[in-house]
Protein backbone atom coordinates (compact mmCIF):
# COMPACT_ATOMS: atom_id res chain seq x y z
CA UNK A 1 0.00 0.00 0.00
CA UNK A 2 1.76 3.11 -1.16
CA UNK A 3 -0.42 5.78 0.37
CA UNK A 4 -1.20 5.82 4.05
CA UNK A 5 -4.73 4.66 4.74
CA UNK A 6 -7.35 7.18 5.62
CA UNK A 7 -8.64 5.26 8.62
CA UNK A 8 -6.76 3.41 11.34
CA UNK A 9 -8.68 1.25 13.78
CA UNK A 10 -6.84 0.48 17.01
CA UNK A 11 -7.88 -2.48 19.15
CA UNK A 12 -5.99 -3.57 22.28
CA UNK A 13 -6.27 -7.29 22.94
CA UNK A 14 -5.59 -9.47 25.91
CA UNK A 15 -6.46 -13.15 25.74
CA UNK A 16 -9.20 -12.84 23.19
CA UNK A 17 -8.37 -15.76 20.98
CA UNK A 18 -11.96 -16.57 20.26
CA UNK A 19 -13.04 -13.03 19.66
CA UNK A 20 -10.35 -11.92 17.25
CA UNK A 21 -11.50 -13.61 14.07
CA UNK A 22 -15.15 -12.57 14.51
CA UNK A 23 -13.91 -9.07 15.23
CA UNK A 24 -11.89 -8.86 12.04
CA UNK A 25 -14.83 -10.20 10.06
CA UNK A 26 -17.17 -7.66 11.60
CA UNK A 27 -14.80 -4.83 10.78
CA UNK A 28 -14.34 -6.01 7.24
CA UNK A 29 -18.07 -6.24 6.78
CA UNK A 30 -18.68 -2.83 8.26
CA UNK A 31 -16.10 -1.28 5.99
CA UNK A 32 -17.66 -3.10 3.06
CA UNK A 33 -16.32 -1.64 -0.15
CA UNK A 34 -13.77 0.71 1.25
CA UNK A 35 -10.12 -0.20 0.94
CA UNK A 36 -8.35 2.64 2.63
CA UNK A 37 -8.33 1.39 6.19
CA UNK A 38 -5.98 -0.54 8.45
CA UNK A 39 -6.71 -2.54 11.56
CA UNK A 40 -4.06 -2.40 14.29
CA UNK A 41 -4.52 -5.28 16.68
CA UNK A 42 -2.27 -4.71 19.64
CA UNK A 43 -1.59 -7.88 21.55
CA UNK A 44 -0.93 -6.99 25.16
CA UNK A 45 1.08 -10.02 26.17
CA UNK A 46 -1.68 -12.57 25.73
CA UNK A 47 -1.01 -15.97 27.17
CA UNK A 48 -3.55 -17.90 25.16
CA UNK A 49 -3.66 -18.49 21.44
CA UNK A 50 -4.37 -14.91 20.45
CA UNK A 51 -1.02 -14.49 18.71
CA UNK A 52 -1.49 -17.61 16.71
CA UNK A 53 -4.79 -16.31 15.44
CA UNK A 54 -3.27 -12.92 14.71
CA UNK A 55 -0.58 -14.48 12.58
CA UNK A 56 -3.12 -16.27 10.50
CA UNK A 57 -5.33 -13.24 10.09
CA UNK A 58 -2.42 -11.00 9.14
CA UNK A 59 -1.32 -13.44 6.51
CA UNK A 60 -4.76 -13.43 4.98
CA UNK A 61 -5.31 -9.69 4.87
CA UNK A 62 -2.73 -6.99 4.48
CA UNK A 63 -4.88 -4.44 6.18
CA UNK A 64 -4.63 -6.34 9.45
CA UNK A 65 -1.50 -5.21 11.29
CA UNK A 66 -0.78 -7.01 14.55
CA UNK A 67 1.54 -5.32 17.03
CA UNK A 68 2.95 -7.64 19.65
CA UNK A 69 3.94 -6.10 22.95
CA UNK A 70 6.77 -7.76 24.82
CA UNK A 71 4.68 -8.34 27.91
CA UNK A 72 1.35 -7.35 29.42
CA UNK A 73 1.35 -3.59 29.94
CA UNK A 74 -2.31 -2.73 30.36
CA UNK A 75 -4.98 -1.34 28.13
CA UNK A 76 -3.76 2.22 28.13
CA UNK A 77 -0.25 1.40 27.02
CA UNK A 78 -1.54 -1.03 24.43
CA UNK A 79 -3.73 1.69 23.03
CA UNK A 80 -0.82 4.10 22.97
CA UNK A 81 1.21 1.55 21.05
CA UNK A 82 -1.61 1.38 18.54
CA UNK A 83 -1.75 5.16 18.27
CA UNK A 84 1.97 5.38 17.75
CA UNK A 85 1.78 3.03 14.80
CA UNK A 86 -1.38 4.34 13.22
CA UNK A 87 -0.98 5.95 9.85
CA UNK A 88 -4.47 7.13 9.11
CA UNK A 89 -5.68 10.69 9.25
CA UNK A 90 -8.58 9.42 11.33
CA UNK A 91 -8.03 7.00 14.20
CA UNK A 92 -10.76 4.96 15.84
CA UNK A 93 -10.28 3.00 19.06
CA UNK A 94 -12.39 0.00 19.96
CA UNK A 95 -12.70 -2.84 22.44
CA UNK A 96 -11.46 -6.25 21.48
CA UNK A 97 -14.32 -8.23 22.89
CA UNK A 98 -16.99 -7.33 20.36
CA UNK A 99 -19.06 -5.34 22.80
CA UNK A 100 -18.59 -2.41 20.47
CA UNK A 101 -20.14 -2.70 17.06
CA UNK A 102 -17.86 -1.90 14.11
CA UNK A 103 -20.88 -0.76 12.20
CA UNK A 104 -20.89 2.34 14.36
CA UNK A 105 -17.53 3.42 13.02
CA UNK A 106 -19.03 5.03 9.95
CA UNK A 107 -21.33 7.13 12.06
CA UNK A 108 -18.46 8.26 14.25
CA UNK A 109 -16.48 9.38 11.24
CA UNK A 110 -19.47 11.13 9.78
CA UNK A 111 -19.83 13.11 12.98
CA UNK A 112 -16.15 13.90 12.90
CA UNK A 113 -16.55 15.30 9.43
CA UNK A 114 -19.17 17.69 10.70
CA UNK A 115 -16.34 19.63 12.24
CA UNK A 116 -15.28 17.91 15.43
CA UNK A 117 -11.87 16.69 16.51
CA UNK A 118 -12.97 13.89 18.80
CA UNK A 119 -16.18 11.90 18.74
CA UNK A 120 -17.06 9.71 21.69
CA UNK A 121 -19.64 6.97 21.78
CA UNK A 122 -21.98 6.46 24.68
CA UNK A 123 -23.53 3.08 25.20
CA UNK A 124 -27.28 2.72 25.04
CA UNK A 125 -29.11 -0.27 26.37
CA UNK A 126 -26.09 -1.67 28.11
CA UNK A 127 -25.93 -5.39 28.40
CA UNK A 128 -23.81 -5.60 31.52
CA UNK A 129 -24.81 -6.65 34.97
CA UNK A 130 -26.50 -3.89 36.87
CA UNK A 131 -24.88 -3.91 40.29
CA UNK A 132 -21.29 -4.72 39.63
CA UNK A 133 -20.79 -2.97 36.31
CA UNK A 134 -23.41 -0.38 35.48
CA UNK A 135 -23.91 1.33 38.82
CA UNK A 136 -20.23 1.82 39.62
CA UNK A 137 -19.84 3.00 36.07
CA UNK A 138 -22.60 5.56 36.49
CA UNK A 139 -21.06 6.83 39.71
CA UNK A 140 -17.63 7.09 38.18
CA UNK A 141 -18.97 8.94 35.17
CA UNK A 142 -20.74 11.52 37.30
CA UNK A 143 -17.61 12.13 39.30
CA UNK A 144 -15.41 12.37 36.24
CA UNK A 145 -17.82 14.78 34.65
CA UNK A 146 -17.92 16.94 37.75
CA UNK A 147 -14.20 17.01 38.20
CA UNK A 148 -12.95 17.41 34.67
CA UNK A 149 -15.80 19.65 33.62
CA UNK A 150 -16.16 17.70 30.40
CA UNK A 151 -19.75 16.54 29.89
CA UNK A 152 -19.04 13.07 28.62
CA UNK A 153 -21.78 10.67 29.49
CA UNK A 154 -19.92 7.42 29.22
CA UNK A 155 -16.19 7.45 29.87
CA UNK A 156 -15.92 3.70 29.86
CA UNK A 157 -16.90 3.31 26.24
CA UNK A 158 -13.80 2.60 24.22
CA UNK A 159 -15.39 3.43 20.90
CA UNK A 160 -13.98 6.81 20.00
CA UNK A 161 -12.85 8.53 16.84
CA UNK A 162 -9.99 10.99 16.74
CA UNK A 163 -8.36 13.21 14.22
CA UNK A 164 -4.72 12.40 13.82
CA UNK A 165 -3.61 15.70 15.40
CA UNK A 166 -5.39 14.86 18.62
CA UNK A 167 -3.78 11.44 18.82
CA UNK A 168 -0.33 12.72 18.09
CA UNK A 169 -0.34 14.89 21.15
CA UNK A 170 -1.30 12.09 23.50
CA UNK A 171 1.22 10.37 25.72
CA UNK A 172 -0.77 7.81 27.61
CA UNK A 173 0.43 5.64 30.46
CA UNK A 174 -0.90 3.94 33.57
CA UNK A 175 -4.70 3.90 33.25
CA UNK A 176 -5.28 7.17 31.51
CA UNK A 177 -7.23 6.03 28.50
CA UNK A 178 -10.51 6.58 30.28
CA UNK A 179 -9.80 10.25 30.56
CA UNK A 180 -8.67 10.97 27.05
CA UNK A 181 -11.58 13.26 26.29
CA UNK A 182 -11.00 15.13 29.54
CA UNK A 183 -7.32 15.51 28.82
CA UNK A 184 -7.78 16.43 25.21
CA UNK A 185 -10.36 19.08 25.82
CA UNK A 186 -8.64 20.92 28.58
CA UNK A 187 -5.17 20.82 27.22
CA UNK A 188 -5.62 21.45 23.53
CA UNK A 189 -9.02 22.98 23.07
CA UNK A 190 -10.39 20.05 21.18
CA UNK A 191 -14.00 19.98 20.00
CA UNK A 192 -15.80 16.93 21.30
CA UNK A 193 -19.11 15.39 20.28
CA UNK A 194 -21.03 12.39 21.56
CA UNK A 195 -23.19 9.95 19.66
CA UNK A 196 -25.08 6.92 20.89
CA UNK A 197 -23.60 3.56 19.99
CA UNK A 198 -24.71 -0.01 20.27
CA UNK A 199 -23.55 -2.35 22.98
CA UNK A 200 -23.46 -6.12 22.74
CA UNK A 201 -23.12 -9.00 25.09
CA UNK A 202 -19.64 -10.24 25.52
CA UNK A 203 -19.45 -13.22 23.22
CA UNK A 204 -16.48 -15.22 24.40
CA UNK A 205 -14.09 -15.12 27.24
CA UNK A 206 -14.42 -13.19 30.44
CA UNK A 207 -14.26 -9.58 31.33
CA UNK A 208 -10.95 -8.47 32.72
CA UNK A 209 -12.15 -5.78 35.12
CA UNK A 210 -13.85 -5.73 38.47
CA UNK A 211 -15.26 -3.47 41.11
CA UNK A 212 -11.88 -2.45 42.46
CA UNK A 213 -11.36 -0.64 39.22
CA UNK A 214 -13.57 2.21 40.43
CA UNK A 215 -11.21 3.02 43.25
CA UNK A 216 -8.23 3.04 40.92
CA UNK A 217 -10.10 5.24 38.51
CA UNK A 218 -10.80 7.75 41.23
CA UNK A 219 -7.19 7.89 42.29
CA UNK A 220 -6.10 8.40 38.71
CA UNK A 221 -8.71 11.08 38.32
CA UNK A 222 -7.33 12.90 41.33
CA UNK A 223 -3.92 12.69 39.81
CA UNK A 224 -4.95 14.06 36.48
CA UNK A 225 -6.91 16.88 38.03
CA UNK A 226 -3.96 17.84 40.13
CA UNK A 227 -1.69 17.74 37.16
CA UNK A 228 -3.98 19.99 35.21
CA UNK A 229 -3.91 22.55 37.99
CA UNK A 230 -0.24 22.16 38.47
CA UNK A 231 0.73 22.40 34.95
CA UNK A 232 2.05 25.89 34.89
CA UNK A 233 2.51 26.90 38.50
CA UNK A 234 3.17 24.07 40.92
CA UNK A 235 4.58 26.43 43.48
CA UNK A 236 1.25 28.17 43.53
CA UNK A 237 -0.70 25.02 44.18
CA UNK A 238 1.53 23.85 46.94
CA UNK A 239 1.51 27.41 48.17
CA UNK A 240 -2.23 27.19 48.70
CA UNK A 241 -1.75 24.05 50.71
CA UNK A 242 0.94 25.72 52.74
CA UNK A 243 -1.33 28.68 53.34
CA UNK A 244 -4.05 26.40 54.59
CA UNK A 245 -1.68 24.67 56.95
CA UNK A 246 -0.44 28.04 58.18
CA UNK A 247 -3.97 29.12 58.97
CA UNK A 248 -4.46 25.95 60.96
CA UNK A 249 -1.24 26.69 62.75
CA UNK A 250 -2.40 30.16 63.62
CA UNK A 251 -5.64 28.75 64.91
CA UNK A 252 -3.87 26.41 67.25
CA UNK A 253 -1.48 29.11 68.32
CA UNK A 254 -4.42 31.24 69.30
CA UNK A 255 -5.94 28.33 71.12
CA UNK A 256 -2.69 27.83 72.97
CA UNK A 257 -2.58 31.44 74.06
CA UNK A 258 -6.17 31.38 75.21
CA UNK A 259 -5.64 28.14 77.01
CA UNK A 260 -2.58 29.39 78.88
CA UNK A 261 -4.07 32.73 79.75
CA UNK A 262 -7.50 31.55 80.72
CA UNK A 263 -6.85 28.25 82.37
CA UNK A 264 -3.27 28.34 83.65
CA UNK A 265 -2.48 24.70 83.05
CA UNK A 266 0.64 22.96 84.32
CA UNK A 267 3.72 23.05 82.11
CA UNK A 268 3.18 19.53 80.88
CA UNK A 269 -0.45 20.05 79.99
CA UNK A 270 0.34 23.22 78.12
CA UNK A 271 2.29 21.35 75.49
CA UNK A 272 -0.47 19.83 73.45
CA UNK A 273 -1.95 22.83 71.69
CA UNK A 274 1.40 24.38 70.90
CA UNK A 275 2.53 20.96 69.72
CA UNK A 276 -0.24 20.80 67.19
CA UNK A 277 0.52 24.35 66.10
CA UNK A 278 4.12 23.37 65.51
CA UNK A 279 3.01 20.41 63.44
CA UNK A 280 0.87 22.64 61.28
CA UNK A 281 3.66 25.09 60.66
CA UNK A 282 6.00 22.22 59.91
CA UNK A 283 3.56 20.90 57.35
CA UNK A 284 3.23 24.33 55.79
CA UNK A 285 6.98 24.55 55.43
CA UNK A 286 7.20 21.06 53.95
CA UNK A 287 4.52 21.75 51.36
CA UNK A 288 6.18 24.97 50.38
CA UNK A 289 9.48 23.18 49.85
CA UNK A 290 7.76 20.55 47.75
CA UNK A 291 6.49 23.37 45.59
CA UNK A 292 10.05 24.42 44.90
CA UNK A 293 11.11 20.92 44.05
CA UNK A 294 8.21 20.61 41.67
CA UNK A 295 9.37 23.71 39.90
CA UNK A 296 12.73 22.06 39.45
CA UNK A 297 11.15 18.88 38.19
CA UNK A 298 9.18 20.83 35.65
CA UNK A 299 12.02 23.01 34.56
CA UNK A 300 12.29 23.21 30.83
CA UNK A 301 8.93 21.65 30.21
CA UNK A 302 7.72 24.23 27.77
CA UNK A 303 10.76 23.88 25.58
CA UNK A 304 11.86 20.33 25.95
CA UNK A 305 8.61 18.49 25.49
CA UNK A 306 8.32 17.52 21.83
CA UNK A 307 5.34 18.05 19.62
CA UNK A 308 4.10 20.95 21.66
CA UNK A 309 2.11 19.07 24.21
CA UNK A 310 0.91 21.87 26.43
Amino acid at each position, binding site marked *: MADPPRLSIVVPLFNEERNVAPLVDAVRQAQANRRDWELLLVDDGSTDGTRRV*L*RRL*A*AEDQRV*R*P*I*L*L*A*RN*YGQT*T*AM*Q*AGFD*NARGSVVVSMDGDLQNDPADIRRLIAKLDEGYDLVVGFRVRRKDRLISRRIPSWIANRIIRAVTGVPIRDNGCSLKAYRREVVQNL*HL*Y*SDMHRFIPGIAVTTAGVRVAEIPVRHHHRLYGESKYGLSRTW*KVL*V*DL*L*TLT*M*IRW*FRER*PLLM*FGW*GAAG*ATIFGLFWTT*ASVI*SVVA*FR*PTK*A*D*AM*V*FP*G*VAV*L*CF*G*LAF*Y*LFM*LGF*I*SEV*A*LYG*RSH*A*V*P*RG*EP
Partner: protein
Amino acid sequence: MAQGDAKGTSEPTARRLVSVLVSVLERPEALDDIYREYSAPLRSAGYDAEFVFAVAPWHRSLAEPLTGLIASGHPIRVVEAAGARGEATLLKLALASANGDPVITLPAYYRVDASALPKLVQRVEQGADVATARRWPRMDPWLNQMQSRVFHRLLGRLAGGGLDDVASGVRAMRREVLETIPLYGDLLRFLPLLAIHEGFAVRQVDAPQHRRDQTKRVYSPGVYLRRLIDLLGLFFLLRFTYKPLRFFGLIGSAFALAGLAILGVLLAQRLGGQGIADRPLLLLGALLVTLGVQSVALGLVGEIIVHFNVPRRSTYRVEGELSEEGS
Protein backbone atom coordinates in the same frame (compact mmCIF):
# COMPACT_ATOMS: atom_id res chain seq x y z
CA MET B 1 40.34 -10.24 13.76
CA ALA B 2 37.20 -11.51 12.18
CA GLN B 3 34.39 -9.02 12.26
CA GLY B 4 31.14 -10.51 13.41
CA ASP B 5 27.84 -9.08 12.32
CA ALA B 6 24.94 -8.31 14.62
CA LYS B 7 21.92 -10.43 13.84
CA GLY B 8 20.56 -12.48 11.10
CA THR B 9 23.55 -14.64 10.32
CA SER B 10 22.25 -18.08 9.65
CA GLU B 11 25.55 -19.75 8.84
CA PRO B 12 26.68 -21.62 11.91
CA THR B 13 30.28 -21.49 10.85
CA ALA B 14 30.63 -17.70 10.73
CA ARG B 15 32.57 -16.50 13.73
CA ARG B 16 30.59 -14.01 15.75
CA LEU B 17 32.09 -11.33 17.86
CA VAL B 18 31.18 -11.54 21.50
CA SER B 19 32.26 -8.81 23.89
CA VAL B 20 33.03 -9.70 27.46
CA LEU B 21 32.67 -6.68 29.70
CA VAL B 22 34.56 -6.91 32.95
CA SER B 23 34.02 -4.27 35.58
CA VAL B 24 37.02 -4.03 37.85
CA LEU B 25 35.73 -2.64 41.08
CA GLU B 26 35.27 -4.98 44.01
CA ARG B 27 37.83 -7.49 45.24
CA PRO B 28 39.35 -8.01 41.82
CA GLU B 29 41.52 -10.98 41.02
CA ALA B 30 44.46 -11.02 38.65
CA LEU B 31 43.07 -9.75 35.39
CA ASP B 32 45.32 -11.68 33.07
CA ASP B 33 44.31 -14.90 34.76
CA ILE B 34 40.71 -13.99 34.33
CA TYR B 35 41.27 -13.27 30.69
CA ARG B 36 43.02 -16.53 30.03
CA GLU B 37 40.59 -18.66 31.89
CA TYR B 38 37.42 -17.18 30.50
CA SER B 39 38.46 -16.62 26.93
CA ALA B 40 39.48 -20.21 26.28
CA PRO B 41 36.03 -21.86 26.32
CA LEU B 42 34.58 -19.10 24.15
CA ARG B 43 37.23 -19.57 21.55
CA SER B 44 36.85 -23.31 21.48
CA ALA B 45 33.13 -22.87 21.00
CA GLY B 46 33.81 -20.91 17.89
CA TYR B 47 33.38 -17.34 19.04
CA ASP B 48 35.64 -14.38 18.61
CA ALA B 49 35.80 -12.92 22.07
CA GLU B 50 37.05 -9.47 22.87
CA PHE B 51 37.53 -8.49 26.47
CA VAL B 52 36.93 -4.97 27.65
CA PHE B 53 38.10 -4.21 31.15
CA ALA B 54 36.60 -1.12 32.72
CA VAL B 55 38.84 -0.20 35.58
CA ALA B 56 38.08 2.01 38.55
CA PRO B 57 40.88 4.57 38.91
CA TRP B 58 42.26 3.16 42.14
CA HIS B 59 42.72 -0.23 40.49
CA ARG B 60 44.71 1.19 37.65
CA SER B 61 47.75 -0.84 38.54
CA LEU B 62 45.85 -4.05 38.11
CA ALA B 63 45.72 -3.44 34.39
CA GLU B 64 49.47 -3.66 33.98
CA PRO B 65 49.67 -7.42 33.40
CA LEU B 66 47.28 -6.92 30.54
CA THR B 67 49.55 -4.62 28.61
CA GLY B 68 51.79 -7.50 27.76
CA LEU B 69 48.90 -9.48 26.42
CA ILE B 70 47.59 -6.56 24.44
CA ALA B 71 51.01 -6.07 22.89
CA SER B 72 51.04 -9.66 21.71
CA GLY B 73 47.80 -9.11 19.91
CA HIS B 74 45.15 -10.45 22.26
CA PRO B 75 41.74 -8.84 21.80
CA ILE B 76 41.79 -6.90 25.04
CA ARG B 77 40.91 -3.33 25.73
CA VAL B 78 41.27 -1.42 28.94
CA VAL B 79 39.08 1.54 29.71
CA GLU B 80 39.73 3.63 32.74
CA ALA B 81 36.90 5.38 34.46
CA ALA B 82 37.70 8.89 35.58
CA GLY B 83 36.40 8.67 39.10
CA ALA B 84 33.43 6.49 38.42
CA ARG B 85 31.57 5.31 41.47
CA GLY B 86 29.51 2.38 40.54
CA GLU B 87 29.61 -0.81 38.61
CA ALA B 88 26.86 0.39 36.33
CA THR B 89 28.95 3.29 35.10
CA LEU B 90 31.90 1.04 34.48
CA LEU B 91 29.80 -1.34 32.49
CA LYS B 92 28.39 1.45 30.38
CA LEU B 93 31.89 2.64 29.67
CA ALA B 94 32.96 -0.84 28.70
CA LEU B 95 29.96 -1.17 26.43
CA ALA B 96 30.86 2.01 24.63
CA SER B 97 34.19 0.51 23.66
CA ALA B 98 32.80 -2.86 22.74
CA ASN B 99 31.84 -4.00 19.29
CA GLY B 100 30.28 -7.38 19.83
CA ASP B 101 26.74 -8.56 20.15
CA PRO B 102 25.80 -10.41 22.32
CA VAL B 103 27.76 -9.07 25.27
CA ILE B 104 28.65 -10.84 28.47
CA THR B 105 28.99 -9.11 31.81
CA LEU B 106 31.57 -10.62 34.07
CA PRO B 107 32.77 -9.55 37.48
CA ALA B 108 36.51 -9.32 38.02
CA TYR B 109 36.45 -12.25 40.40
CA TYR B 110 35.54 -15.88 40.07
CA ARG B 111 31.91 -16.82 40.22
CA VAL B 112 31.13 -19.52 37.75
CA ASP B 113 33.16 -22.03 35.88
CA ALA B 114 34.36 -20.66 32.58
CA SER B 115 32.60 -23.37 30.63
CA ALA B 116 29.34 -21.59 31.35
CA LEU B 117 30.08 -18.65 29.08
CA PRO B 118 29.48 -20.33 25.73
CA LYS B 119 26.29 -21.82 27.13
CA LEU B 120 25.04 -18.37 28.03
CA VAL B 121 25.79 -17.01 24.61
CA GLN B 122 24.06 -19.92 22.98
CA ARG B 123 20.98 -19.34 25.07
CA VAL B 124 20.84 -15.78 23.82
CA GLU B 125 21.29 -16.95 20.27
CA GLN B 126 18.40 -19.31 20.78
CA GLY B 127 16.13 -16.39 21.45
CA ALA B 128 16.55 -15.14 24.99
CA ASP B 129 17.32 -11.47 25.43
CA VAL B 130 19.20 -12.11 28.65
CA ALA B 131 20.72 -15.38 29.84
CA THR B 132 21.76 -15.21 33.46
CA ALA B 133 23.94 -17.80 35.13
CA ARG B 134 22.71 -19.61 38.15
CA ARG B 135 25.40 -21.20 40.22
CA TRP B 136 24.42 -24.84 40.48
CA PRO B 137 25.48 -27.09 42.01
CA ARG B 138 26.78 -24.92 44.79
CA MET B 139 29.73 -25.67 46.93
CA ASP B 140 29.57 -22.88 49.45
CA PRO B 141 28.96 -23.34 53.10
CA TRP B 142 25.45 -24.29 53.96
CA LEU B 143 24.81 -20.99 55.70
CA ASN B 144 25.51 -19.03 52.55
CA GLN B 145 23.21 -21.21 50.54
CA MET B 146 20.48 -20.73 53.08
CA GLN B 147 20.89 -16.98 53.02
CA SER B 148 20.76 -16.99 49.27
CA ARG B 149 17.64 -19.07 49.21
CA VAL B 150 15.82 -16.85 51.67
CA PHE B 151 16.87 -13.77 49.78
CA HIS B 152 15.64 -15.10 46.48
CA ARG B 153 12.40 -16.29 47.98
CA LEU B 154 11.82 -12.75 49.23
CA LEU B 155 12.85 -11.36 45.88
CA GLY B 156 10.37 -13.56 44.12
CA ARG B 157 7.62 -12.44 46.44
CA LEU B 158 8.37 -8.75 46.01
CA ALA B 159 9.47 -8.46 42.45
CA GLY B 160 8.54 -11.70 40.78
CA GLY B 161 10.82 -13.27 38.25
CA GLY B 162 11.50 -16.81 39.37
CA LEU B 163 15.24 -16.29 39.54
CA ASP B 164 17.50 -18.16 41.89
CA ASP B 165 20.83 -16.42 41.63
CA VAL B 166 20.31 -12.83 40.75
CA ALA B 167 23.64 -11.72 42.08
CA SER B 168 25.89 -14.10 40.21
CA GLY B 169 26.72 -11.19 37.97
CA VAL B 170 27.52 -13.40 35.02
CA ARG B 171 25.08 -12.74 32.23
CA ALA B 172 24.97 -12.78 28.49
CA MET B 173 22.61 -10.41 26.79
CA ARG B 174 21.85 -8.72 23.54
CA ARG B 175 23.54 -5.41 23.34
CA GLU B 176 20.25 -3.63 23.11
CA VAL B 177 19.31 -4.71 26.62
CA LEU B 178 22.24 -2.95 28.20
CA GLU B 179 21.64 0.09 26.07
CA THR B 180 17.97 0.34 26.87
CA ILE B 181 17.58 -0.39 30.53
CA PRO B 182 18.25 2.54 32.82
CA LEU B 183 20.97 1.40 35.18
CA TYR B 184 22.56 3.28 37.98
CA GLY B 185 23.82 2.74 41.47
CA ASP B 186 23.24 -0.74 42.77
CA LEU B 187 20.53 -1.60 40.29
CA LEU B 188 22.97 -3.54 38.20
CA ARG B 189 22.73 -6.34 40.69
CA PHE B 190 19.11 -6.78 39.72
CA LEU B 191 19.50 -6.43 36.00
CA PRO B 192 17.51 -9.58 35.17
CA LEU B 193 14.50 -8.22 37.05
CA LEU B 194 14.72 -4.87 35.36
CA ALA B 195 14.99 -6.62 32.04
CA ILE B 196 11.81 -8.56 32.72
CA HIS B 197 10.12 -5.34 33.69
CA GLU B 198 11.11 -3.80 30.40
CA GLY B 199 9.65 -6.71 28.54
CA PHE B 200 12.80 -8.64 27.65
CA ALA B 201 12.91 -12.42 27.74
CA VAL B 202 15.16 -13.53 30.57
CA ARG B 203 16.28 -17.13 30.99
CA GLN B 204 18.33 -18.80 33.63
CA VAL B 205 21.15 -21.19 32.77
CA ASP B 206 22.69 -23.56 35.29
CA ALA B 207 26.42 -23.13 35.57
CA PRO B 208 28.80 -24.92 37.87
CA GLN B 209 30.19 -22.74 40.60
CA HIS B 210 33.81 -21.83 40.29
CA ARG B 211 36.04 -23.57 42.76
CA ARG B 212 37.47 -20.25 43.81
CA ASP B 213 34.12 -18.67 44.46
CA GLN B 214 34.41 -19.19 48.15
CA THR B 215 32.27 -16.16 48.86
CA LYS B 216 32.02 -14.98 52.32
CA ARG B 217 31.39 -16.09 55.77
CA VAL B 218 28.41 -14.46 57.42
CA TYR B 219 27.94 -10.95 56.19
CA SER B 220 27.91 -7.99 58.51
CA PRO B 221 24.45 -6.75 59.48
CA GLY B 222 25.03 -3.59 57.47
CA VAL B 223 25.05 -5.63 54.30
CA TYR B 224 21.75 -7.27 55.11
CA LEU B 225 20.19 -3.91 55.73
CA ARG B 226 21.42 -2.62 52.41
CA ARG B 227 20.10 -5.65 50.59
CA LEU B 228 16.74 -5.21 52.24
CA ILE B 229 16.63 -1.59 51.23
CA ASP B 230 17.63 -2.54 47.71
CA LEU B 231 14.75 -4.96 47.58
CA LEU B 232 12.24 -2.41 48.82
CA GLY B 233 13.47 0.16 46.38
CA LEU B 234 13.29 -2.31 43.56
CA PHE B 235 9.82 -3.39 44.53
CA PHE B 236 8.62 0.17 44.51
CA LEU B 237 10.33 0.95 41.25
CA LEU B 238 8.94 -2.04 39.43
CA ARG B 239 5.40 -1.88 40.70
CA PHE B 240 4.85 1.84 40.78
CA THR B 241 6.99 3.18 37.99
CA TYR B 242 4.13 5.05 36.44
CA LYS B 243 1.77 5.39 39.35
CA PRO B 244 3.55 6.72 42.41
CA LEU B 245 0.42 8.28 43.78
CA ARG B 246 -1.14 4.87 44.25
CA PHE B 247 1.66 3.93 46.58
CA PHE B 248 2.00 7.20 48.46
CA GLY B 249 -1.70 7.85 48.32
CA LEU B 250 -2.55 4.55 49.90
CA ILE B 251 -0.11 5.01 52.75
CA GLY B 252 -1.05 8.66 53.13
CA SER B 253 -4.77 7.97 53.21
CA ALA B 254 -4.33 5.26 55.78
CA PHE B 255 -2.44 7.62 58.06
CA ALA B 256 -4.79 10.51 57.47
CA LEU B 257 -7.87 8.45 58.11
CA ALA B 258 -6.46 7.08 61.32
CA GLY B 259 -5.61 10.60 62.38
CA LEU B 260 -9.02 11.92 61.47
CA ALA B 261 -10.67 9.16 63.39
CA ILE B 262 -8.74 10.09 66.50
CA LEU B 263 -9.44 13.77 66.01
CA GLY B 264 -13.08 13.02 65.44
CA VAL B 265 -13.32 11.22 68.76
CA LEU B 266 -11.59 14.09 70.48
CA LEU B 267 -13.86 16.61 68.84
CA ALA B 268 -16.88 14.72 70.06
CA GLN B 269 -15.47 14.74 73.56
CA ARG B 270 -14.72 18.44 73.38
CA LEU B 271 -18.23 19.21 72.27
CA GLY B 272 -19.44 17.07 75.11
CA GLY B 273 -17.76 19.39 77.55
CA GLN B 274 -14.49 17.60 78.22
CA GLY B 275 -11.36 19.68 77.86
CA ILE B 276 -8.79 18.41 75.43
CA ALA B 277 -5.90 20.77 75.98
CA ASP B 278 -4.00 18.17 77.96
CA ARG B 279 -4.59 15.17 75.76
CA PRO B 280 -1.50 13.80 74.02
CA LEU B 281 -3.87 11.90 71.80
CA LEU B 282 -4.58 15.18 70.10
CA LEU B 283 -0.95 15.40 69.15
CA LEU B 284 -1.02 11.90 67.80
CA GLY B 285 -4.08 12.59 65.70
CA ALA B 286 -2.57 15.76 64.32
CA LEU B 287 0.69 13.99 63.58
CA LEU B 288 -0.99 11.21 61.67
CA VAL B 289 -2.96 13.64 59.56
CA THR B 290 0.19 15.61 58.89
CA LEU B 291 2.09 12.53 57.82
CA GLY B 292 -0.80 11.55 55.61
CA VAL B 293 -0.88 14.89 53.85
CA GLN B 294 2.88 14.83 53.43
CA SER B 295 2.76 11.39 51.91
CA VAL B 296 0.05 12.28 49.43
CA ALA B 297 1.82 15.50 48.49
CA LEU B 298 4.99 13.55 47.79
CA GLY B 299 2.99 11.20 45.65
CA LEU B 300 1.73 14.13 43.64
CA VAL B 301 5.23 15.33 43.02
CA GLY B 302 6.06 11.84 41.85
CA GLU B 303 3.16 11.93 39.45
CA ILE B 304 4.32 15.25 38.10
CA ILE B 305 7.73 13.81 37.44
CA VAL B 306 6.30 10.80 35.68
CA HIS B 307 3.85 12.81 33.68
CA PHE B 308 6.41 15.10 32.23
CA ASN B 309 8.97 12.41 31.61
CA VAL B 310 6.76 9.98 29.77
CA PRO B 311 6.94 11.70 26.41
CA ARG B 312 10.70 11.31 26.48
CA ARG B 313 10.77 7.59 27.07
CA SER B 314 8.75 4.94 25.42
CA THR B 315 6.60 3.14 27.94
CA TYR B 316 6.46 -0.15 26.11
CA ARG B 317 8.49 -2.49 23.99
CA VAL B 318 7.26 -4.12 20.88
CA GLU B 319 8.27 -7.62 20.10
CA GLY B 320 7.58 -7.18 16.48
CA GLU B 321 5.01 -6.42 13.94
CA LEU B 322 3.86 -9.47 12.15
CA SER B 323 4.29 -9.15 8.47
CA GLU B 324 5.01 -12.13 6.31
CA GLU B 325 7.61 -13.63 8.59
CA GLY B 326 6.44 -14.53 12.04
CA SER B 327 8.73 -14.16 15.05
